Every structure is written in structure tokens, then in C-alpha cells.
């Protein structure tokens, strides 16, 4: 048989197949995300959120595009992404930044010192957004050297969450320790005594301690442990003198408090205990499993509880409320309601005070270490900034101002389960927020002892150095004084060098 015959058809067949493949991709393949508008200014908005938080922000973006954006000829193109700080950094350096970037609060001053952000003062003033519109702690954190560089998308304050069930179970132990289970800790010393009374430690067959329940662990989750000094009355960076205070006697005292937990619970036992914890956003979160009775957290905790351990929000609920709850669950099952809207609807139907009674968890301001200190709370936030070189700063700010409108901000913060950064909070927001304790978070953010990220241009380095020092302390590798002296020495030199180099650039 002649083999040249099939070869004769080989080339045309391959060519036809290739052309068909190309035609298929052109007809049915993916389309570029081209905005459905041609007569509007396109504002590029990059945001770090993914999952639910991203889709909730998408709703705000859609609302803007359908209302204000439509009237003013602006269309916001929203892009949710990971590693937003790197992408914003590289695009800004390359001269093609987005019009709006949703950075972390830790980057505002860092980027501002490097002239990478557009000052927003004029634009904010023209929209009536002034200092008095915000809570002082948040306005301060958005400004640097007298200029406004960011506004807020969602903020947080933090305090102590406690497990009411464990308190009830350990009531006798609390009483034996001379504590009243009905009177929550008012000082750090009392909180330590509470923690000790709630610890459940068993001996293994080999005679080692195995922690079953820990009353409190400073390193769980440890996200804000660098700010512990504030509970002892000292800040990391003294903005008045421009000096770091990492080895300030009160800071060392704060670190001694952290180390005392490692010594009391035992490093190895605590290591084994903590390794059994799941991730924060999992059902194995130690607060949700009851492994840790008290944790420092932000207002989003209520959201995670509802999604991961809903029974913690349905403790001792009377039959009529159970019925309402089941009715809402039925609406979710039939597709009439999203699970997110269910939470908001439940909050709208059941007053916050009543909902608190159904929670098997509670929330109070973190007990202070020093007399006279009250409502000390770290207040962080997610920012909206306009990077230097953005193509449409005015149009971008229209969207930022829209997000900062009280009704929009409260809607977004309710969906994200966070408090509001604005000076005024509506009654509706405080009563119908999915977190029944939101009024306390709001009060904490208003406190004169509320504080934000230290306003120092090298904060990411200082933060990492603090984290390292605290790990050395927690792991008993160094005495608190030694670890903090080392950190102070290194970071003082680093900051001095940073200022020298900025000085050489003509910027102090």
C-alpha cells in the first residue's frame, strides 16, 4: 500500500483542525472584562479582599456605578487580587498604577514617606470630608505630616472575647480563686487570675502536662501582640520626640507579662497545645472549639462564629426565636435569601441586647494593666488610597467619597461585620449590626486611649523586629529586657539611617 496517500491528507487535516480550534476560541472563548459603558471615565480599583468580603465590596461598587457613577459619568472597574501591596508598588513604580488601591493601614505612612500617594486634602474638603467627620484615631492614622493620604473602607477596634460556657463550667474554680464569675475582669491582673482558674491541664501517662483548655494565651491569635505595650501605657513610637520606645520600662513590663504565660503553662505543653489549633477561619479555631476561653479579637469574630459555629449564637434561645431562626433558614434553603442577608435580617428583627443573651460568647474592652487606663484598643483599618500617577484622581475620589457616605459606610461595615470609622453612627447601625456588641467596639474606637499603627516610615521593619523579639521572649530564648534592648538598638540605627537617606533626598 502506498504510504504517501495518507500523508497527502495529513497537512490539510492538521491545518483545518488548527483553524477550527482558533475559530472555536474566537467564538466561544473568554472575553476581556470590558466595562459595558463607553461614555464614562473608567476608574480602576484594586482591592485585596477575596471571597465574601470581595463580593460585598462588589455590591457597593455596583451601587456606585448605578447611581452616582451614572450621574457623573464614572464607572469603577473593581479588581480583587492577592499581594496587592506588591502589585501596587510595582505598578506605581512603573507609572501605571490603579486609580484606587485598597492597601493595608501599615502601608499608608510607608508609602507617604516615599511620595507614592496623592494627598487627598483638597479633594476631601471639596466633598465635605474633614477631621470632624471621622473618629479621631482613624483620621490621625490617615494623615501624615499634616496631609491626608488615605480614607477608610472598613475599620476595626479590638477587645476581649470570652466564652460564657467555659465561665459557667469553671464557676467553682473561679470562686475558689476568689473571683466572682458574674463580674468580668476589670484589670489585667484579674484577667490573669481568671485565665489561671479556667485552665484545664491533665497529666499524661508519661507524666507531662497536657493542656485541655487555656484561659488565655497572649500569642493566640497573636496578631496584635506587638501592641501589648499600649495596655501598659507606652506606645512603640513616640511621635512627639520621634523616638522608638521598644525598651521602655513599661514595654519591658508588658513583655514580662507575655513571658509569664510561657513559664506558667510550660513552653512544651503550650507548643503542643497550640499546634492542635486550626486556622482562624476554620471550625478548628481554638476560640470556637472552646480550647481557649478568652481571646483578643476584632468585630469580625461575630461573622466567623455565625458562619463556622452558628450554635454559639443560639444559646438558650426561646422557642419563638428558634422558630424565626428556622424560618430564615428555610428562606436561605429555598434561595429567597443569601446566608449573608439572613444574618443582616436576623439582626434587623432581633434587638442587639436580646441577641447578646443568646450568644455563648461575650465581649468586653480589654482589661488595662495600669490604673487610670481605660478602653485601650488597637484600631486598624483597610484603606482607600490614590497612588501617585493615577490617571483619574478626581473621579477616583468620587468613589472614595461615596464609600465614606454614612449610609454606604454603615452598609459596608455591617456586611463586613466591622465598626464604623465615622464620628457619628446611626441608631440603626448600632442596633441592627450583625455583631450584637458593636456599640462597645464603637465606644472603644472613640476612646482617647484608642491607637493606630505607629506613624513611622519603617513600620514594616519595626513590626517584624517586634514580632521577632516577642517570639524570643515567648520561647524563653531571651529575657524581655535583653530582647527589647536588642530590638531597640537595631531599629534605632535603622530609623536613623532611613532619616539620613530621606534627608539626602531633601525630605525630612
Amino acid at each position, binding site marked *: 500500500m502506498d504510504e504517501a496517500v495518507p500523508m497527502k491528507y495529513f497537512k490539510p487535516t492538521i491545518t483545518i483542525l488548527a483553524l477550527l480550534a482558533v475559530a472555536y476560541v474566537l467564538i466561544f472563548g473568554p472575553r476581556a472584562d470590558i466595562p459595558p459603558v463607553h461614555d464614562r471615565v473608567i476608574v480602576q480599583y484594586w482591592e485585596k479582599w477575596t471571597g465574601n468580603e470581595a463580593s460585598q465590596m462588589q455590591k457597593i461598587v455596583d451601587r456606585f456605578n448605578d447611581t452616582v457613577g451614572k450621574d457623573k459619568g464614572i464607572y469603577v472597574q473593581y479588581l480583587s487580587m492577592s499581594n496587592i501591596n506588591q502589585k501596587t508598588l510595582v505598578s506605581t513604580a512603573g507609572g501605571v498604577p490603579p486609580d484606587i488601591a485598597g492597601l493595608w493601614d501599615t502601608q499608608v505612612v510607608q508609602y507617604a514617606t516615599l511620595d507614592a500617594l496623592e494627598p487627598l486634602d483638597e479633594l476631601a474638603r471639596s466633598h465635605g470630608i474633614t477631621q470632624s467627620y471621622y473618629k479621631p484615631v482613624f483620621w490621625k492614622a490617615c494623615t501624615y505630616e499634616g496631609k491626608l493620604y488615605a480614607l477608610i473602607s472598613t475599620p476595626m477596634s479590638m477587645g476581649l472575647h470570652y466564652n460564657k460556657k467555659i465561665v459557667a463550667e469553671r464557676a467553682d474554680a473561679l470562686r475558689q480563686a476568689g473571683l466572682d464569675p458574674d463580674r468580668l475582669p476589670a484589670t489585667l491582673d484579674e484577667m490573669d487570675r481568671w485565665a489561671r482558674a479556667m485552665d484545664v491541664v491533665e497529666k499524661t501517662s508519661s507524666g507531662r502536662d497536657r493542656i485541655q483548655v487555656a484561659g488565655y494565651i497572649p500569642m493566640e491569635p497573636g496578631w496584635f501582640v506587638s501592641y501589648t505595650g499600649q495596655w501598659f501605657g507606652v506606645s512603640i513610637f513616640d511621635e512627639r520626640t520621634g523616638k522608638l520606645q521598644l525598651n521602655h520600662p513599661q514595654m519591658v513590663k508588658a513583655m514580662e507579662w507575655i513571658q509569664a504565660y510561657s513559664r506558667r503553662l510550660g513552653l512544651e505543653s503550650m507548643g503542643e497545645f497550640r499546634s492542635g489549633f486550626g486556622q482562624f477561619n476554620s471550625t478548628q479555631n481554638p476560640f470556637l472549639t472552646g480550647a481557649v476561653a478568652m481571646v483578643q479579637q476584632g468585630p469580625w469574630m461575630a461573622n466567623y462564629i455565625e458562619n463556622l459555629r452558628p450554635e454559639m449564637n443560639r444559646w438558650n434561645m426561646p422557642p419563638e426565636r428558634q422558630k424565626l431562626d428556622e424560618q430564615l433558614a428555610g428562606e436561605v434553603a429555598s434561595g429567597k435569601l443569601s446566608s449573608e442577608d439572613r444574618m443582616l435580617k436576623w439582626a434587623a428583627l432581633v434587638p442587639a441586647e436580646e441577641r447578646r443573651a443568646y450568644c455563648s460568647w461575650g465581649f468586653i474592652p480589654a482589661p488595662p494593666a495600669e490604673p487610670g487606663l481605660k478602653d485601650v484598643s488597637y484600631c486598624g483599618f483597610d484603606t482607600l488610597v490614590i497612588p501617585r500617577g493615577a490617571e483619574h484622581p478626581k473621579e477616583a475620589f468620587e468613589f472614595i467619597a461615596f464609600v465614606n457616605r454614612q449610609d454606604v459606610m454603615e452598609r459596608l461595615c455591617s456586611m463586613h461585620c466591622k465598626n464604623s470609622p465615622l464620628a457619628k453612627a446611626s441608631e440603626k447601625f448600632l442596633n441592627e449590626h450583625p455583631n450584637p456588641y458593636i456599640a462597645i467596639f464603637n465606644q472603644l474606637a472613640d476612646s482617647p486611649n484608642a491607637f493606630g499603627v505607629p506613624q513611622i516610615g519603617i513600620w514594616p521593619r519595626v513590626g*517584624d523586629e517586634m514580632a521577632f523579639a516577642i517570639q524570643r521572649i515567648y520561647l524563653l530564648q531571651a529575657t524581655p529586657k535583653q530582647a527589647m534592648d536588642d530590638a531597640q538598638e537595631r531599629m534605632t540605627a535603622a530609623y536613623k539611617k532611613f532619616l539620613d537617606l530621606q534627608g539626602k533626598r531633601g525630605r525630612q
Partner: protein
Amino acid sequence: MTRKDWQDFSRGIAFISPWIVGFLAFTLLPVALSLYYSFCDYSLLQSPLWVGTENYRELMRDDDFWRTLRNTGYYAMVALPAGLMVSVGLALLLNQNIRGQSVYRTIIFLPSLVPVVASSMLWMWIFNAKLGLLNHVLSFCGIEGQIQFSWLNHLLGLQGGDMIQPLTMPPPWLDDARTAMPALIMMSIWGVGNAVVIYLAGLQDVPRELYEAADIDGANGWQRLRNVTLPMISPVIFFNLVMGIIGSLQTFATAYIMTGGGPAKATYFYTMYLYDNAFSYLRMGYASAMAWIQLLIVLVLTAVAFWSSKRWVHYQGK
């Protein structure tokens, strides 16, 4: 050059021009610029400011530079020989003519197909102190209790906070500064499948007549391995050694995912510190200086490997 030669040359250049342009624009230019930036204070967001050799001098005084260099060196010095020995050993076993040989080969190779993020997550659970498979096996085997280091503390004259604390067995692997690095090294051995395949190819290439000659000379199994197999696959071992040196000095992803460099920077690798300087602290000039030092270290180690190879690498036909 004739007109035709010139035309051929031009055509050739035109065909490889995409690569040439790509190489110049995306490799050579960034490399040259990074050398320049290593002598500058540069954040990406401001124009570079010439600081001379300051970045290099600061590196010499930087505790973290030395710490990460030490950590990376420790990892490379243990993981590399361990990986070589295990992969050669496995290749020798898989080279035996036994039933199900291809199944075993596939099983050994499979882990190297798992993405690094997935394998890291898997190993985080294996090393979990409370729920981990490894500690369950150790407990089952009766490996429990405490290891005291009093003799070592005494020998080294360590006191107070400097003393080495007792280690509870089974240990909390990734949560203990002393066991986190050994854990990462153990995990690195899991991915030797690639190297095993290369060794297997090398083993298949060993001429049968050499084994026959060794048999006639009365060589036992060890002597055959020592005098025939290993010398004959020494070029393959050398290739894996050089690639291993380069790879282990660039370790990043597993530690970044599994430990974040902790506890207390016990697994903080050189490339992680470089990355932090570049993208978190915005010190691109400093990070560039680190990259050039890293290149220098790799070059020196590779040169040493090449120099030593004259003594132990045997090429067929030479």
C-alpha cells in the same frame, strides 16, 4: 562573507531575535540594573540614590544577614548530602530487577509532581505536634519523655537564658526553634523523585561488561558499588550536586508557607530576607546587594564543586 552568507546570517538573527530581545530586555538589563541598584538606596518608588558600597558594608554588620546565611548553610549542608544519599540509594533499589519495579518507580516519583504549596500543607499536618502522623508513630513506638541537655549546657558553659532547654519527645516539630529546621530537611527528602529518575537513567547506562569483569575479579556487592557503579554514575551525581547547591541556596517556598521563617527566625532563609527587604521594607538596593552576594556564593561553591570533580567524577571514554 558572501551575499548569501550574509542573507543566511540575517535570517538566522531574525528568527532568534525574539529570544535575543527577551534576553536583553528581561534578563541582561535587569541583571545590570540590579548591580547598579546594589550601590544605591532605592525603594522603587523614588529615584535611586547612590550610596557607594554602603549596602554591602551594612550587610556585614547585619545580624539577620548572617543569621539567614547560617540557616541556609545549615539547610544546604544537611539536606543536600542527605538528599543525594537517599536518592542514590533509592535509585539503586529501583534498579533491581524485581516484580512491580515500574510501580515502585512511579510511587517514588509521584511526590515530586505535587505542587509545593500542597506538599507544604500536607507536611504541616504530618508535623503537627498534637494531631500529626509523625508524632503518633513516634508515640506508638514508645519514643516519649524528655531529652535533657544538661551535659551540653555544662560542656558549653551555658547559663540562664542561654541554656538549651529540655526537649520533650515527640517534639512539637515546627513550633520549636530546635526542631523546625530538621523538620524542613526531612521534608526536602520527600521530593527526591526527580533526582532518582536521573540516577536511574545513569545506572542503566553503566556497561554490563564492567560488572562482568568485576565478577570475574571476585568483587562482592559493596566492591561493585564502590568501584563500578558509583564511579560510573559520578557525572550524574555531580550534576545533581551542582543543581542541589543552587537549589538549596534559593530555598524559599516551603519555609515561607510552613513556618514563615519562625519560630524566632530559626528557619528564616536568605531568600526570604532578600524578599522582605525588596517588597516589604522597600529596600530594593539592599536586596540587590544581597542577590549579588548570593550569586557570588553560588559561583564560589559551584567552582569548588567543579574543581573537586576532577578527583571524583569519571566520564566514560576519558
